[in-house]
């Protein structure tokens, strides 16, 4: 049961501090309102990319490489082209220009030009009258390959240079994607002076997003040469730019639209092969062309969590203060760069909170292998290091005989501070997060005192609310919003922000309703359409609520100034007396004077001109003064603490998680129901990665199971009780104080689970995933079997968690 089910729609969400401005002061903000597209989605009325059908539309399919690494010698499509119903076949020769979401690393082709780099790499695409004809045509395309040595082990890519997966400059290893080493303070001196130095190896495996909606794109050319692409993407603006580059078109002739999206989690934040293919095929055939990928193809497109081999050395004083952290990380990037440059930085840059430590070094290397390419998945780049570090921190607490929550308190960095790598911290509610999970889980009475096989574990984390690093360098705003007022009283908001299910369109509507005093139902949101909407950079790095939210408030305040000014003139009063609230304009000095909001708009339109406004957001100058110092520099950081409860079946290795307490500092919950949903969804995803999910290839380099049957994700019956505990630190720069909530709450669940296992059975698991065979092996290696429970001392009876269930806020 979710927290939402427990509390109902009128739940008293979150903890309130004394003196904290109550949400009662708002009309809309802080209320658990329905999503603006909730009914459409629940009733099936919402239109996703694959729901779109145009007259004369053709269907396209992709031919993929059966080789993990090979030269493409020849592609012969003549038999396919001769098949009745086939309209066009394209190959790498039709789309030779390389692209990549990071402008410095364009290493992808829509279709293989001379080389394939993993099993599933796109080679050719067919447009035909229907899907079956297109599939039949694929089987008629003859491709000659010259197989090359395939790299499956990232350690091999580090040392072997030939053949290179991406041949680089002379003297460079083309199998290395990115190397970053940054030093802050003297980490070796810290180790030499420390009371305790702990060193260890950790493994994070690959996992993928598995959004319920597969990738889909539809392209259409107008008679006057305007290309429109509807695509299931979370980065409309970057797709727009990439299309112009690869198709060699003036971007002014391209329109990109994101229809309703069925989940992304980072898996739709690259430009993808199908977007270029449908555009090219539509150009060639003169007809609209759609391509919908199968679930299997989504697994090949991947861009999921990077597998990482991590080594940490942490130094601490006797009282538990951390003096230095030294990390060395090997990142398996798969076959292309994707966001890999950023991943390599994030793997180090995002560890420097919520704890303060005076010295830090990280050395991370991302290599290419012949596997589906990795990229950004919810908690991009920082979930893996967080796992390693929080497990190591727990071990430090153990060795120093400190309570694991206490050691985290002692190292708290504080508010309004700067991290060792030069990041600015503003609001920081981490201590409150710790306090909430400590109380709700019954930590003091239960941790270390539960019967053998049951345990509690804690972990903390921080995450960004967007960063000041735009993917391509420019001085323009990161987020833009435009408002248009109708005489009916309705307001239309145009935003480039991508609602990927996280509810950003709803957040925009709530902000407009709050600022301009109109009911939420009177706000229409037009989003993610490059012809209609001002640019926003897209839904990644948890930037949308913060940046688009601030841009929305900016636009609203400009518009409100016009309206209030006109009413002040109309009523002959001070502008400060005029309020727009609850669908009316009111003179607070003379409350008898009030008007329905539509009439107020009429007065303003008559006095001012057609009503509208624009607003924008750009980050302040942030980040350390060194190369890469802006990567991971966020205007505000969110903070999270989890306590996980686990039961270990020592006969089978099965881990059962009955409860996860999730406390998250989201600044302010603009809609607590959406925030709780993000917290629960994050904990679900992280727990799924720890317990079951494993995105890997088999000994042939073939995906180990590209289906939702074989890539196991927990079902409803596998999930614990999730207790969402909202902390509101009211960030000085966030919209109404809000920060992100969609990615941060994922991080701590994995290390907290490992730490809980240690509490349960005294075994420390450092290598993910915690599948049953692995857990059993580790238990057996530690001499634990089914007799262990009987040998264990009788446990002191402790309060069951159920007492805390209802009050888990």
């Amino acid at each position: 049961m979710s927290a939402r089910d427990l509390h109902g729609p009128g739940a008293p969400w979150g903890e309130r501090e004394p003196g904290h401005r109550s949400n009662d002061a708002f009309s809309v903000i802080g209320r658990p309102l329905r999503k603006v597209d909730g009914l459409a989605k629940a009733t099936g009325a919402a239109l996703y990319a694959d729901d779109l059908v145009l007259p004369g539309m053709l269907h396209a399919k992709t031919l993929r490489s059966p080789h993990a690494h090979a030269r493409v010698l020849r592609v012969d499509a003549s038999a396919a082209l001769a098949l009745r119903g086939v309209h066009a076949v394209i190959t790498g020769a039709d789309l030779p220009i390389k692209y990549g979401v990071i402008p410095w690393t364009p290493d992808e082709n829509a279709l293989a030009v001379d080389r394939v780099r993993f099993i599933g790499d796109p080679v050719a695409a067919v447009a035909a009258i229907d899907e079956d004809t297109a599939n039949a045509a694929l089987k008629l395309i003859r491709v000659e390959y010259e197989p090359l040595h395939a790299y499956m082990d990232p350690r091999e890519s580090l040392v072997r240079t030939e053949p290179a997966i991406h041949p680089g400059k002379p003297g460079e290893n083309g199998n290395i994607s990115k190397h970053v080493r940054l030093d802050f303070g003297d980490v070796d001196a810290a180790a030499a002076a420390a009371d305790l130095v702990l060193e260890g190896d950790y493994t994070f495996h690959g996992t993928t997003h598995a959004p319920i909606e597969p990738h889909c794109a539809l392209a259409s050319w107008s008679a006057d040469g305007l290309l429109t692409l509807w695509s299931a993407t979370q980065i409309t603006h970057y797709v727009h730019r990439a299309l112009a580059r690869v198709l060699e078109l003036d971007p002014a002739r391209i329109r990109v639209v994101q229809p309703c999206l069925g989940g992304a989690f980072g898996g739709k934040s690259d430009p993808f092969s199908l977007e270029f293919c449908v555009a090219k095929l539509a150009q060639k055939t003169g007809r609209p062309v759609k391509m919908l990928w199968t679930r299997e193809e989504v697994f090949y497109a991947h861009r999921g969590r990077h597998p990482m081999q991590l080594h940490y050395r942490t130094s601490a004083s006797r009282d538990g203060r951390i003096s230095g952290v030294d990390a060395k990380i090997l990142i398996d990037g798969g076959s292309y760069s994707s966001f890999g440059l950023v991943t390599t930085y994030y793997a180090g840059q995002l560890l420097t909170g919520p704890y303060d430590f005076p010295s830090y070094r990280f050395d991370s290397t991302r290599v290419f292998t012949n596997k589906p390419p990795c990229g950004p998945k919810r908690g991009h780049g920082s979930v893996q290091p967080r796992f390693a570090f929080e497990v190591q921190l727990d071990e430090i607490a153990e060795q120093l005989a400190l309570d694991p929550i206490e050691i985290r308190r002692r190292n708290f960095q504080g508010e309004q501070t700067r991290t060792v790598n030069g990041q600015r911290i503003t609001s920081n509610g981490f201590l409150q997060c710790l306090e909430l999970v400590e109380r709700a889980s019954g930590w003091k009475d239960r941790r270390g005192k539960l019967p053998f096989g049951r345990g509690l574990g804690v972990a903390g984390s921080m995450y960004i609310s967007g960063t000041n690093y735009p993917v391509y360098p420019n001085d323009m705003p990161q987020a833009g919003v435009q408002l248009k007022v109708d005489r009916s009283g309705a307001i239309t908001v145009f935003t480039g922000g991508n609602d990927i299910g996280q509810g950003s369109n709803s957040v925009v509507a709530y902000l407009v309703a709050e600022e301009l005093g109109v009911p939420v139902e009177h706000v229409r949101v037009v989003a993610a359409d490059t012809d209609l909407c001002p640019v926003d950079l897209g839904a990644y790095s948890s930037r949308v609520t913060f940046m688009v939210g601030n841009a929305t408030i900016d636009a609203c305040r400009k518009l409100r100034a016009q309206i209030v000014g006109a009413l002040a003139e109309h009523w002959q009063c001070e502008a400060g007396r005029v309020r727009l609230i609850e669908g009316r304009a009111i003179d607070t000095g003379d409350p008898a004077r009030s008007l329905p909001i539509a009439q107020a708009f009429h007065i303003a339109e008559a006095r001012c001109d057609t009503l509208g406004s624009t607003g924008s957001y750009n980050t302040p100058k942030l980040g350390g003064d060194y190369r890469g110092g802006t990567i991971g520099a966020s205007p505000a950081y969110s903070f999270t603490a989890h306590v996980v409860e686990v039961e270990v079946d020592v006969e089978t290795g099965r881990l059962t998680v009955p409860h996860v307490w999730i406390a998250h500092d989201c600044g302010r919950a603009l809609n607590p129901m959406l925030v709780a949903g993000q917290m629960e969804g994050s904990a679900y995803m992280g727990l799924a990665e720890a317990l079951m999910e494993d995105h890997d290839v088999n000994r042939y380099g073939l995906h180990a199971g590209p289906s939702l049957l074989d890539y196991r994700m927990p079902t409803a019956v596998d999930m614990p009780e999730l207790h969402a505990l909202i902390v509101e630190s009211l960030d000085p720069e966030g919209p109404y104080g809000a920060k992100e909530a969609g990615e941060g709450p994922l991080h701590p669940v994995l290390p907290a689970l490992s730490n809980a296992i240690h509490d349960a059975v005294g075994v420390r698991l450092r290598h993910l995933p915690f599948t049953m065979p692995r857990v059993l092996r580790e238990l057996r290696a530690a001499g634990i079997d089914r007799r262990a429970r009987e040998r264990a001392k009788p446990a002191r009876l402790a309060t069951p968690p159920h007492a805390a269930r209802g009050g888990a806020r």
Partner: protein
Amino acid sequence: MLRMPQFSLERPRSLAQAIALLSEHGPAALPIAGGTDLVPNLKHELHSPSVLVALEHVPELHGVRVLADGALSIGAMTRLADLALHPEVVARAPALAQAASLVAGPQLRTMGTLGGNVLLDTRCQWINQSYFWRQALGFCLKKDGTVCHVVEGGKKCVAAASNDTAPALMTLGATLELEGPDGVREIALDEFWVADGINNKKLGQGELLVRIRVPQQRAGHRGAYGKLRERGSIDFPMLGVAVRVDIADERIRDADLCVVALAARPLRVKRVGETLAGKPAQGPELETAIEAVAELAHKQCHPLPNIPGDADWRKEMVPVYVRRTLLAALTGSGPVHHV
């Protein structure tokens, strides 16, 4: 979405019509019951029938009856969801009801049938994949290829029987009523299997499974099913253990234990009856005997890396699930399942 191949659909209204259609079209026709196994296999291009004969409207295949001799006669089209809750099945054959309740997930049990589960095709990580995937692999012994990827140099397919209900029915001494162009025949389920993953059943061309007969069990019958899987729903078994124990005067009179999801056919663990016979139904002597049965099973079962899941670990799970399922049968607390 993966596409379905093209086929025509026949919907016979009687058993005779269904058998005639299957005879008429020969190997080009396949029967379809609930379709929960066949449809994904069609999408993976494991079969390419030109005709599907739907059994939905064949009345002879429906209904659960208690016969005069106390046996259960279960129509092959009985939905697994109905079977799991049928009061006569729950009372007379608890292991079967429990096994049916754990097949796949709720939606699939609403469509899937007992006949379909008994006749379920064997499964292997190298075969239950798309055509593209299998082609990239170079195919395998079970279809289109010559190499076994489970056993190096293997010449016999070892895809795993994965039907939860089969071992339960075996412990209950079930027989199958088959009807085909050559008439009706009855075969003990024990005799029905072949240790060949390509086709592990002695089912003739054009022959249909009509009904499953579960004989009346002895007074003091106890049964249970234990299923090992990663998730609490949806997944096929990584190991299935079915148990029958007959109790008389608080002592075990006879017992039987069958397992599935290890090899190409469901297997009976040998010498279970003689190890348990005469032992008291509780107490330390029973515990020792259960340990001995767990040890027998551990020695006799040899999981292969055919289905997903570490084979060594699955072997270690055999004694654990044998022990737990035996205890569940004795205490009436089955099924053994983690959720």
